[in-house]
């Protein structure tokens, strides 16, 4: 199979220009990957500093205002610069056309444009660091965000611009999935990652414009005084929360849906077994996308929202548990009698199942109106969404990264160090955030700079956990970068996967992905009929 004339996409062209003006979805994906990984490290650094401040109940290194700015930046960078583009734009860009058997996405120039729009927006956000970093929290709630003297406009403008990048990626993916499938690939022969990206793209297209207009209205409220959010002008600040969460709750599913897609890929490849309940998993992705638009009010239980609305939102929130549960049960059923190999990506799969279940179940707890009134704005909420966003999305992102790394760069990373780093991240993560469930349940409010002495032991314990977690990420950064130059050359199909990306020849795919357009005759995970490509 291996032929000497094979030139991978990385070697096809050389020089900085061949990257900056590339229209190749794989190169754009790689550029996204490095940018979002850098954002992850930056956001992580802010997290370490935050936790350091919380080591003691009183002031340690930062002033109260600096603390507010730090948690705002941590949140805004992690959400807008890292998590939202992480799986769809970085991994999705690389993997989607390959999995479809296509030469590229439907609109390659739009794809490059969306990358530069993202970078442009990210620069605005970073720029806000130097002009009085924002201290409103990443949610920019009015009325404070209308009054704060910090650079709210630069940060929200950045998020507004990055939103367009996300929308254009969604538009591109919808057209790609509809029109670029290889011959024979019907909707029910799509890999489940593609279904997940499709559901994600729907949310990106239908929800993201609302954050765009909301942030624009916030900026206009500050400049022109439109009056709809500012209570001193007769507006209603809770209306901002409705607008904000109409996007930002579905955005949580922009984060978790592609993560679930990666899980379906990992579980089949590392169990060498057809997925259990293909259509149930596919439809549940669409169901999550639809339900995501019905639940935003559960962020407003204690904001002065009408009690009837709270009750409706509480009931609707419970619905999310159904499709999520369907997925988890199907993944576990897939493992049954599979020939499981505990490679690093599969370890991330196992970590995901464990952490996502905790994140999901505590979500049901918080969705219950009666409980949330007590739990709201405590560390319980902080722990919950970190279990979903980090324990879910980031762990899946890392799993996907380790799974597709050899296909992306043609090199293998260190098996030993990747497992050590996985262990440190898994243990460190639970160390930090399980502790915060206890803190929250015992009454520690979130976003507080100083706190009562009785909470110090748990706070200090949580802080020490961040050092373990941080060292895991540090090791990962080192061995991944190391593998780029010194890693062993990977085979074309190191894990024995059978979705189309593993049918490309050579360690990395060629410029137009496939020498001959593949013909699809079986389902994506049909290990009984499809020969594992070598």
């Amino acid at each position: 199979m291996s032929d000497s004339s094979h030139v991978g996409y990385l070697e096809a062209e050389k020089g900085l220009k061949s990257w900056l003006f590339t229209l190749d979805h794989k190169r754009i994906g790689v550029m996204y990957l490095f940018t979002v990984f850098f954002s992850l490290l930056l956001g992580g650094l802010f997290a370490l500093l935050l936790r350091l401040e919380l080591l003691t109940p009183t002031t340690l290194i930062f002033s109260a205002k600096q603390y507010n700015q730090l948690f705002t930046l941590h949140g805004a960078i992690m959400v807008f610069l890292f998590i939202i583009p992480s799986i769809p734009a970085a991994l999705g860009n690389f993997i989607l056309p390959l999995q479809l058997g296509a030469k590229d996405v439907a609109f390659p120039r739009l794809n490059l444009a969306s990358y530069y729009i993202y970078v442009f927006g990210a620069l605005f956000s970073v720029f806000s660091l130097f002009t009085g970093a924002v201290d409103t929290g990443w949610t920019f709630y009015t009325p404070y965000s209308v009054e704060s003297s910090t650079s709210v406009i630069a940060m929200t403008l950045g998020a507004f611009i990055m939103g367009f990048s996300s929308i254009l990626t969604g538009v591109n993916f919808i057209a790609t999935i509809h029109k670029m499938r290889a011959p024979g690939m019907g909707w029910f022969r799509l890999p489940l990652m593609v279904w997940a990206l499709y559901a994600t793209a729907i949310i990106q297209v239908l929800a993201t414009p609302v954050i765009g207009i909301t942030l624009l209205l916030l900026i206009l409220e500050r400049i022109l005084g439109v009056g709809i959010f500012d209570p001193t002008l007769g507006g209603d600040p809770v209306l901002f929360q409705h607008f904000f969460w109409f996007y930002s709750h579905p955005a949580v599913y922009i984060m978790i849906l592609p993560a679930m897609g990666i899980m379906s890929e990992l579980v089949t490849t590392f169990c060498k077994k057809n997925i259990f309940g293909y259509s149930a998993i596919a439809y549940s992705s669409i169901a999550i996308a639809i339900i995501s638009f019905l639940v935003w009010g559960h962020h407003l239980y204690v904001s002065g929202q009408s009690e009837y609305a709270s009750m409706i939102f509480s009931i609707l929130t419970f619905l999310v548990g159904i499709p999520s549960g369907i997925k988890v049960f199907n993944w576990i059923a897939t493992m049954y009698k599979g020939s499981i190999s505990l490679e690093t990506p599969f370890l991330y799969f196992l970590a995901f199942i464990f952490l996502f279940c905790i994140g999901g179940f505590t979500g049901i707890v918080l969705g219950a109106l009666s409980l949330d009134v007590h739990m709201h704005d405590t560390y319980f909420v902080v722990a919950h969404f970190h279990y979903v966003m980090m324990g879910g999305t980031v762990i899946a992102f890392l799993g996907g990264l380790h799974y597709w790394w050899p296909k992306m760069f043609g090199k293998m990373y260190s098996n030993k160090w990747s497992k050590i780093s996985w262990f440190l991240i898994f243990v460190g993560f639970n160390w930090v955030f399980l502790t915060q469930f206890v803190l929250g349940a015992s009454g520690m409010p979130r976003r507080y700079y100083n706190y009562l002495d009785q909470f110090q032991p748990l706070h200090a314990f949580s802080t020490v956990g961040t050092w373990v977690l941080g060292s895991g990420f540090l090791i990962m950064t080192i061995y991944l970068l190391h593998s780029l130059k010194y890693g062993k050359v990977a085979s074309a199909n190191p894990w024995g996967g059978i979705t189309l990306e593993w049918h490309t020849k050579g360690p990395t795919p060629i410029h137009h992905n496939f020498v001959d357009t593949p013909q699809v005759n079986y389902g994506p995970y049909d290990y009984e009929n499809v020969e594992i490509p070598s």
Partner: protein
Amino acid sequence: MSEQNHSHHVIPVAVYAKTFIALLVLTALTVLASRVDLGILNTPLALGIALVKMSVVALFFMGLKWDKGISTILFVGAGVAIFIFMLLTFADFSFRGDISAEEGSTFGIKSPVKLVEPGALHHGETSKGSHH
């Protein structure tokens, strides 16, 4: 490559001309309806005519009538999303303060914003209001 392969056949000019006339008639209708006081019915009538006009534009000018299903799904899906947005936002605003009677009695408006003195809003005591 050939023309009939396109999902798209050429629509006669007469169809577009009739659509145009229909839109002008509906515009005249919406203005006339608003000049008559129908009480509570004015708003739903105006919105109803606007919805009809939107459908006419989407079906004929934008060609949804002859287009593939996915275009309609995307367009109608966007409409459904707005409907949900409107409906659930009003689940809040229509019933605000209905359960806790105390809120209504404090200052007589259904608002979560508590004013220390009613009227402070109008007399420039906050920095935002100082230019009035």
